[in-house]
């Protein structure tokens, strides 16, 4: 793919901008400890934690920037931030 001359872009680029590539630490969810309280989903500033199967919640790694708020706030300490290999 050739670069756009002068870093020009059409509208809607935010949909193409996969912010997950910014991540250094990755939240890993432990379903054994998760109480399905949903606090992480409420507090995620990117809105990229969603309910998946059986009311469990999972992050969308395509957009998760790895800010760590979910891990910090999880009352059951069910989320661990792990260094990501790229």
């Amino acid at each position, binding site marked *: 793919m050739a*670069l756009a*001359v*002068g*870093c*020009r*872009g*059409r*509208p809607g*680029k935010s949909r193409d901008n996969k912010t997950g*590539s*910014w991540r250094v630490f990755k939240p890993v969810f432990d379903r054994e400890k998760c109480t399905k309280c949903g606090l992480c989903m409420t507090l995620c500033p990117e809105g990229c934690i969603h309910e998946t199967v059986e009311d469990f919640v999972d992050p969308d790694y395509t957009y998760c920037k790895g800010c760590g708020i979910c891990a910090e706030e999880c009352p059951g300490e069910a989320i661990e931030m792990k260094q990501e290999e790229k």
Partner: protein
Amino acid sequence: MMEITEGSHAVAEAVRLCRPQVISAYPITPQTHVVEALADMVANCQLDAEYITVENELSALSACIGASAAGSRTYSATTSQGLALMFEVCFNAAGMRLPIVMSIANRALGAPLSIWNDQQDSISLRDSGWLQFYAEDNQEATDLHYIAYRVAEDHSVLLPAFVCFDGFILSHTYEPIDMLSQEDIDRFLPEFTPYERLDAADPISFGMYATPDYYLEFRYEMDRALKESKAIIQNTGKEFARMFGRDYSAMVEGYRLEDADTAIVALGSICGTTKDSIDEMRDEGKKVGLLKIRVFRPFPTEDVAKALAHVKRVAVLDKNISLGAKGAVALEVKDALYSSGIPVKDYIIGLGGRDVRKKDIKAIVALVEKGQGDMFYGLRTEVL
């Protein structure tokens, strides 16, 4: 047609012939008469352009960015502190790949406050991605504007350009100039065809955000475009020569250099004084020549190396100083001659309008012959 005109008025007339659609400027001191003359032309309906007056130079060049992005041929002029205030905008104009042309009447940067000539202002923006042309006289200063627009707007270049001419020494001096006609320039410089432009019906953003995954590549593309512009500059110069007889196709130009033992390298108006002193030194039997650098960015490294390959020593005249290091031209020339073994000495001259005369050029040649250099020339040690 031959006219006797003041440098900045001649540049204004050349810019008028290029039919800029938007001019934005902030003519505070230090300025020249260029944008003042263009304002008159717009007011007198001699030029059909939008003339935007703004609150400072940062806004002047920002207005040019907007107008250029919207698809207009744009122009501004500035000098010293005004250019310094445009620093951020200069990088943006280049990064957005907008072919703005701006005249720089070279002057010293404060502090201490100075309004006089040296080339520190444009040289300090050598890394901004703009093409930099330097004129020896006012004929060249006018002609380089036509060439600058053609090269900058070429879709394989798409970078802005400075046309630099020495403040006062050229900008305020009356010289005979062969001024081309509107028909001539219309034949040489076609209407501006933007590569892409702002359009409400088909929205687009310029100079967006690049993550670490992309930024390096964008800078590489700018560097590549600047390096590849060398061929465009040469071809455009050849076409200009074919149409109007004056040849600017070479990015460097030798004067009595073919059999020279000592070469002087310089850019701008000092080349004229240097040529006169070379003629006198030749009469005394000294084999001295000049290599004039017309295009400083992109830097013609290969051309410099080739032109100086046969000389025994090189003296570089720098009307600028990278404080704590050397003059910017000397650093480039040393790089070009790195593996040749030819000694290159740097002489910082003429800062803040200090006069440089033929006797000074001769004294510098005497110094380089003795192997003395990499120094400020003409220091008044009694005041230190």
